[in-house]
């Protein structure tokens, strides 16, 4: 009860129930009436044309005099000829990392299979020489994969990482998008940057 009167004394907003000085409303609609100048259409049209023409002229100049560090002022990238620069955080196609001898790092623990929100991963575990666990089949259904990166985040062996590959992810046939283990294997060297990146972001310093 006491609390209620407190709020009342502070002059709450009637509909929100929070003191107005805390809300700090700002009226954005100041000029309801257009001036005669603005209501004549033509001058505002000329101003709008000035803006678009300015963009046009600057962009045309940008084709000739290239701005520093760019090919043109327009930020479009001619895709197949030019490639976008991908940030280190980029999550591309998930791939399986191999040791130097070509054997996969994966021990078929099944964590990625479990955490995958799209159920895209299927692992069949087997033992090699009676001691080494390895996936005899590792199927990744790329038509289900949502590139969330959870498999990489939970993997205790750095065996699956999100590579920077972003080309050739789409197929005309869905059955071609089911990748087998052999199609996913990549050498440790080729995904070195990513492994360093995940070591850094998931390291102890963040906790």
């Amino acid at each position: 009860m006491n609390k209620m009167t407190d709020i009342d004394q502070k002059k709450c907003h009637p509909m929100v129930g929070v003191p107005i000085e805390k809300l700090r409303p700002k009226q954005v609609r100041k000029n309801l009436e257009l001036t005669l100048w603005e209501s004549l259409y033509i001058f505002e049209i000329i101003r709008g044309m000035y803006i678009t023409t300015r963009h046009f002229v600057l962009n045309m100049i940008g084709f000739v005099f290239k701005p520093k560090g760019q090919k043109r002022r327009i930020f479009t990238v001619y895709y197949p000829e030019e490639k976008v620069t991908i940030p280190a955080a980029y999550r591309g196609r998930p791939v399986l990392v191999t040791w130097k001898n070509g054997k996969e790092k994966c021990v078929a623990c099944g964590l990625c299979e479990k955490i995958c929100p799209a159920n895209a991963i299927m692992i069949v575990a087997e033992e090699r020489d009676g001691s080494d666990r390895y996936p005899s089949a590792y199927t990744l259904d790329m038509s289900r994969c949502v590139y969330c990166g959870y498999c990489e985040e939970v993997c205790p062996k750095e065996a699956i990482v999100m590579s920077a590959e972003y080309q050739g992810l789409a197929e005309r046939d869905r059955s071609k998008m089911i990748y087998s283990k052999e199609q996913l294997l990549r050498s440790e060297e080729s995904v070195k940057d990513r492994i360093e990146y995940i070591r850094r972001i998931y390291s102890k310093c963040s906790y």
Partner: protein
Amino acid sequence: MSDITKDFNTEHMVINMGPSHPVTHGTVKFLTTLDGETIVDLKVDIGYLHRGFEKMCENGTWQQVIPYTDRLNYVSPLINNVGYALAVEKLIGIDVPERCKYIRVIASELSRICDHLTNIAAGGLELGAFSAFLYFVEARDIIWDLIEMLCGARVTANYVRIGGLKNDLPDNFKEKTLEVFKKVRSLWADVDKLLTKNRIFIDRVKDIAAMPPDEAIAYGFTGPCLRSCGVPYDVRKAQPYLVYDRMDFEIPIGETGDNFDRYLVRMEEITQSLSIVEQAFDQIPPGPINVDMPQYRWQSKDDVYNRIDSLIFHFKTVIEGIKPPPGEIYSAVEGANGELGFYLVSDGSGKPYKIKVRPPCFALTAAMPRMMKGRFIADIVPTFDMINMIGGECDR
């Protein structure tokens, strides 16, 4: 005149706007009954994008829901991430580190800017101002570059974790952001000049679909659409979460609640959000970004690689999921369209018992018939854009 109307027997024309129609970004159908150009009756038919989000969540662990939330409001995925993570943290009762809170504020505000930019851009496009659309899409694109730097994907962010974040801010993130903001501000000024004072645009949006505040509240309006009616309700101010109480910003409010007010409120909110991000960069402290609670946040890779007890516990939390105490909770954040609420029920197991989302645009879409009756068919265009129905969020 009356003789003509008596003899001249005209029928109303029933016409389907949608589900695949240029105005229906997101898939929705308007069953409109037209008398010439005037709308006599309008029925909104939603559900075309229903994916069973809430049911899907019950089949995954608590962490597995986060990628699903990206697909709710796909224009501002980070806010959904933050909203869900905050709800689960409230259910568990943990408090994330300071730095994490600031980064979450930065991420949400970047997303909010993207959402408003997209919305106004789409509004311009649908009204025929194609240049304004592309200027704002360019601004959104360079902000998406930032988001990509931050979380590795442009739309499907999957950035926020329960009890922390996926990763810290990348190097030089502040400098790059401020550089991008300079460009965003200049594009904002261009679009402001192209649209705000342009009489053609004003004629199209002013006094269309006005809502009185009491009626707007009765319909369940939140967010920019409610603020445009003059009600300064913003979850960030009314029930401050994260560190919004330390930020210096104002709530832009309109007067009549028409489309022009909605547009102005959003334009103003873009600048407010830009300044919030800059303030957050100034105030952000160093430190950890995750809670050091292995039972709720997956452990660091150092521990998993090197310590057998940590490894075993890692397996346990991944496979069984984190286990919040039994109970139920409602937690809301200020989404780009309004109050984005998550109602969670936990039965103490690793999987959510129930997750209910309160999508802001559901209530807004419900008011379409009220706003549109007696208007022209062309008025559907700015109105439906300005209420900003996002199919992924509305239909779930």
